[in-house]
């Protein structure tokens, strides 16, 4: 039985500017069903671009030139736009780093959530509204009925991130990509969002790619970890193995930096 939900093999995404920038240069990893896989590394190491490549969201001058992304038996890189559209947002979805740009400022939260539901589910608007409210409640937004009619600028950063999470979950995805979901928030809100994510991971049996530069958060959230440096995964394995027995000096340095702070 194939229990892997996602297999990424030798993924290469290059940017063709005046010179060729090898942003993702031969990345391979697997994610089992129900597993939380952490990608950790410094800024510019290619974490986010790996995630965006998985969703085929790379804009020119960037291009994914090689590799395979096998999701549920099919290679996403060989898939046409239409089939891809059925997968993106409904079976794989993403929460971005900065909640202030992840929501469209000219529409209400409710409108955007209903739009997300209607894009993938054949339900009427009343049902879609019910579902949206249910998920806003699930991410513990106190006044979810009021927030539904609010515009993004009326909400705090933490609430906006909760809305983004609700929006990513509303179509019950199998794989969720969390791209530094707490980096743009202050520490107390970070802790609350991490608690929320913990709870959701347990409840919804999601498989997750968790991207962060913070080894502390990775250690808390993930089962498996891949350490990225200069577009490559230089070390990967069980979380405890990596934390206790880092093989690469770069990983050791990353771990040291967390210890030095705490």
């Amino acid at each position, binding site marked *: 039985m194939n229990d892997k939900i996602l297999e990424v093999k030798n993924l290469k995404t290059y940017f063709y500017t005046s010179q060729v920038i090898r942003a993702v240069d031969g990345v391979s990893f697997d994610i089992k069903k129900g597993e939380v896989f952490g990608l950790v590394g410094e800024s510019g190491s290619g974490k986010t671009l790996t995630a*965006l490549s998985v*969703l085929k*969201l790379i804009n*020119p001058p960037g291009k994914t030139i090689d590799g395979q992304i096998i999701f549920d038996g099919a290679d996403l890189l060989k898939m046409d736009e239409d089939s891809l*559209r*059925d997968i*993106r*947002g*409904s079976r*794989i*979805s*993403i929460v*971005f*780093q*900065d909640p202030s*740009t*992840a*929501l*469209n*400022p*000219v*529409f209400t939260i409710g409108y955007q959530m209903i*739009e*997300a539901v209607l*894009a*993938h589910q054949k339900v009427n608007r009343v049902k879609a509204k019910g579902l949206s409210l249910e998920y806003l409640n699930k991410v513990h937004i106190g006044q979810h009925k009021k927030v539904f009619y609010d515009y993004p600028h009326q909400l705090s950063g933490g609430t906006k991130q909760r809305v*983004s999470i609700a*929006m990513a979950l509303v179509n019950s995805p199998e794989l969720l990509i969390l791209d530094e979901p707490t980096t743009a928030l202050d520490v107390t809100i970070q802790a609350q969002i991490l608690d929320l994510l913990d709870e959701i991971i347990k409840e919804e049996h999601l498989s997750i790619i968790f991207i962060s530069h913070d080894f502390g958060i990775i250690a808390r959230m993930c089962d498996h970890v891949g350490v990225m440096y200069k577009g490559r995964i230089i070390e990967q394995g069980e979380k405890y193995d990596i934390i206790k027995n880092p093989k690469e000096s770069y990983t050791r340095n990353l771990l040291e930096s967390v210890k030095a702070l705490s």
Partner: protein
Amino acid sequence: MTRAFLKNRFALTGLVFIIAIIIFSLFAPFIAPYNPSHIDTKNILTSPSKDHLFGTDTLGRDIFSRIVYGSRISLSIGFIAVGIAVLIGVFLGSVAGYYGGKIDSILMRFVDIMLCFPTLFLILAVIAILEPSIFNIMVVIGATGWMGVARLIRAEILTLKERDYVAAAKVMGASDSWIILRHLIPNAIGPVLVSATLGIGGAILVESSLSFLGIGVQPPTPSWGNILMDGKSTLGVAWWLTIFPGIFILLTVLAYNLLGEGLRDILEPRLKDE
């Protein structure tokens, strides 16, 4: 935003005057005391009086009535010409901004070329070839006035398309046209609104210039420009033929400019202090 608008005296003055002039043109048949084309040979070139508020012209037609009916033509040319310009500009600008690359280069070079033509002479040439009907004038003014809008929209979309909600919409399975129409244009429309408001004033002026040169709206249909032109030959003896339509053009264009400037202050508060 409504409150900011009410606080802004310039914008409010402009808006009130524009609404007044629109009501004026909508209810023209009730406001105008005479038929604007009615020729009255007994009352040629009478100066402003109780019977003829703004006097009469060389054919004895009532100037006030002609101005009231002329406002319909002048205003609708302003609106529709700018509407056409905005449609073309928003379409080409958003396509150029969103797709970038070669499409962007080609479209923006086309904009550069269009901007090189002296607009009024281009319009004159086109109208001279086609017939000077109201419809042609609207289309030609619109077709030569969209470049500013295209540049504005393109610049806005270049920054907006990098936002995460665009990526999020893509993840949700939104098509390019959906993203442009529903996510990008509503966010980019502010500066366009300002430029369109200022553009309406400009279009009314262009129509007046064309009519003044005799290739605009053709008599006997009154427009502010051709009433002005009719008065040109008798300027020495009958000042009211040119002064009154002139004042209406001035005030209307001024009102649109005030409204446009006011909207800019409200939509882009950063510029206010400078």
